[in-house]
C-alpha cells in the first residue's frame, strides 16, 4: 500500500478539480475564439492537461493508481499529437503562407 500525502484543509479536492476545470475551460474557450493554428494546438494541450489535473486529483482521493497510469498515457498521446499537429502546421504554412484556420475551407459543402 503506497502512502499518499493527505489533502489538507486549505487545499481540498474541490480546489484541484476546480483548477483542472478552469484550465480545460480556458483551452476550450481559446480553441473556439482564436484563429492561429499554433495557438489552437496550444489550446488543445491546455484541454488535455486540464483533464490530467482532474484525473490526478481523483487518484489522490481514494488512493487509486489507474488514473495516474492514464495520465502517463495521455502524455504520450499528447506528445504524438503535438508532433503531428506541428508538422501539419509547417506544411500548411508552406502551402498557404498563412496559419489562419479560416483559410482552410476545402471541406465547405
Amino acid at each position, binding site marked *: 500500500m503506497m502512502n499518499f500525502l493527505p489533502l489538507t484543509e486549505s487545499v481540498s479536492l474541490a480546489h484541484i478539480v476546480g483548477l483542472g476545470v478552469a484550465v480545460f475551460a480556458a483551452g*476550450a474557450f481559446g480553441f473556439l475564439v482564436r484563429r492561429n493554428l499554433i495557438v489552437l494546438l496550444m489550446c488543445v494541450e491546455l484541454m488535455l492537461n486540464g483533464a490530467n489535473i482532474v484525473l490526478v486529483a481523483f487518484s489522490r482521493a481514494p488512493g487509486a493508481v489507474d488514473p495516474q497510469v492514464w495520465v502517463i498515457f495521455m502524455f504520450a498521446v499528447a506528445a504524438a499529437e503535438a508532433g503531428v499537429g506541428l508538422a501539419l502546421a509547417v506544411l500548411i504554412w508552406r502551402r498557404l503562407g498563412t496559419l489562419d*484556420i*479560416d483559410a*482552410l475551407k476545402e471541406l*465547405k*459543402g
Partner: protein
Amino acid sequence: MEGNFYPLLKWMILPPLAGFVLNGLLGKRLLSERTGGILGSLAIFLSFIFALLSVSDLLNLPAADRLLRDTLFTWISAGPFTVDFALRLDPLSAVMALVVTGVSFLIHVYSIGYMHGDRCFHKYFAYLNFFVFFMLLLVLADNPVLMFVGWEGVGLASYLLIGFWYEDPEKASAGKKAFVTNRIGDAGFLAGLMLLAAVMHAGGVYGLDFATLSANAQLAAGASFAGVNAAFLIGVLLFVGATGKSAQFPLYVWLPDAMAGPTPVSALIHAATMVTAGVYMLSRMFFLYEAAPAALNVVLITGCFTAFLAAVIAVAQRDIKKVLAYSTVSQLGYMFMAVGAGAWAAGVFHLTTHAFFKALLFLAAGSVIHGLGGEQDLFKMGGLRKHMRTTFILTATGWLAISGVPPLAGFYSKDLILEKVFNSGAGFVWLTGLFTAALTAYYISRLLILAFMDKYRGKEHVHGSPAVMTAPMGLLAVLSVAGGMAGAAWLLPFLQPGAPPEHHSALMIAVSVSAAAAGIIAAFLLVGRRTEDLAAAWPRFHKLLLNKFYLDELYEALILKPLERFAGWTFRVPDSKVIDGAFVNGTAALFMSMGRGLRAAQTGNAQFYAIVFLAGLCVLLAAVLAGYYL
C-alpha cells in the same frame, strides 16, 4: 440395376470433347490447318472405333439382354429423387451411335477439303467436334434429363455452325432463327419432361431412367392433367419438342434457312444426324406413346402433312441446297409417319438410310458449289456431268437411292414405312405418302437434270473436287446402295429382336416403285431445258411455291410483329419509365436532394465544427449524468 455395367461407353463421348478443347484453345495458335483437320477427324474416328467395340460386345449378349450401362456420377439428388449422369447402349442407341460417329467421320474428312483455306478453319472443326460430343450424349443418355442436355448442346452447335460465316448478316440471322424456333420446341420438351416427372412422383416413382419410366408408363396413362389424359399430353408436348428439332410443321421454317451454314454442316447436322434427334427421342419414349395412341395419331398426321408440304415446296426451289433442305424436311416427315403408325423401327431404319443418301446428296451439292466457286442457283449450272464426272456418278447414286428405286437404300426403308402405314389402316395418309414419294422422285430428278444434264449455263470456271472430298462421298454412295439390303436383313431384327420378319406384298412394292418411276419420268418429260416448266404452265401456283406458301410471311405478321410491338412497349413503359425512371434514377434523385439539404452543415469553418463537437459532448454528458442521478 438392370443392364450390364460397361465402362467403355464414356470413352465414346470423350474424344470429340478432347478434340473440341484442343482445336478450340490451341488450334489457331499452334496447329497447322492440316493437323487441326486430322485431329478433328481422328477424334471422331476414335469414337467410331469405341462405338464398334461396344456394339460388338452388345451383339455378344443374348438378344433379350442387350443393354449396357455406364454411370459416371449422380447428377441430381433431392431426397429420394435422383438423376444419374448415366449412359446406355441398347440396339436403338447402338444404331444411332454408329450412324452418328460413322457419318460424322466421313463428313469431317470431307470438310478438310471443303473448308481448305478458310480463315476460321480450326474453329470450324472445334464446333463440329463439339456437336458430335453433344449428339452422342443425346443418343447415349440413360434418362430424358441428360438427353435434354445433349438436345440443347446440339442446338447450340447448330446455331454456331449455321452462323459460322457471321460477317454476313443474313447468315447470322439464319442462325438466330434456327435457335429461336428451336427454343419454342424445347419449351414443349421441357414441359413434357416436367409433367412426366410430376406424374411419376405422384405415383411414388422417383427414378427417371428409361427402364424405370418404361416399367411405369401406365402411371401416366392412368393420370390426368387439367382434364386431359397425362400420357397424351406428355406425348404431344414431347412431340412439340421433336417438331422443333426435327423441323416438322409448323416449326420447320428454320431448316431451309439453316442452309446458310457450310455445306458439310448441312449434310451432318441438318440432314443426317441432329434433325433426326426428334425421331430418335420419340422411338426412345415409345413406351409412353403406346400408352397414348391418340398422341400417335397427332404424330402420324403431322408427319404426313409435313412430308407432303415440304415435297411440294421442293419442286419449285432454285437453290440446290434449298431443294435438299425441303427434301430433308419431307423425309423426316416420313420417319414421323412411321413412328405415328407404331413402327418406330421402320422410322429408325429410314433415319439410317436417309443419313447415308442425304449426306451423300448434300456432300455432292457441296462438291458442285465448291467447283463452281460458290454458285448455288440450279439455273446457272447444267451440263456438269462432263465437267465433274465423279460428282455426277455419286449424285446419281443418291438420286436413285432417295427416289426409291430398288434395290437401293431408300427403296427398302420408304417402302417399309408406306406398308406399315397402310397396314395401320390410315388409308388417306398412305395415299398422301405415296404421292409424296412420286414428288420426291420428281424434285430430285429435276435437281439432277438442272445441275448435270444439258449444257453448262454459268460463267464461272468449273474445277473438280479433291480426293479428300470424293472419297467420303464414295463410301456414302456404297452405303446408299447397300444400306437398304443390309438394314432389312440385320438392322430390323437387331432393333426388334422378337418381331416377326417383314412380309412384303408384291402389290405394295409394285405400287411404290411405279410411284417413283412416275416421278422420274415426269421430271424427264417436264423439266425444261432452259426455262422453268412450272412457271410457264401455272405461273401463280409456281409463285406460291417459290415463296413457300408465304408461311414465313404469315409467321412474321401473326407472331413476330405483335411480339415486336410488345417488346417495344415493354422497352418504352416498364423498362424506361418504371425501372430506369422510378427505380434507378428515382433512388439517385432521392439521395441527391438529401445531400443537397445536408451539405449546409459543412461550413468549412473549423471552429463551427468545434462548437458542434462541444455541444454534442455536453448533450452526451448531460444524458449520462441524467441517467446517473435521475
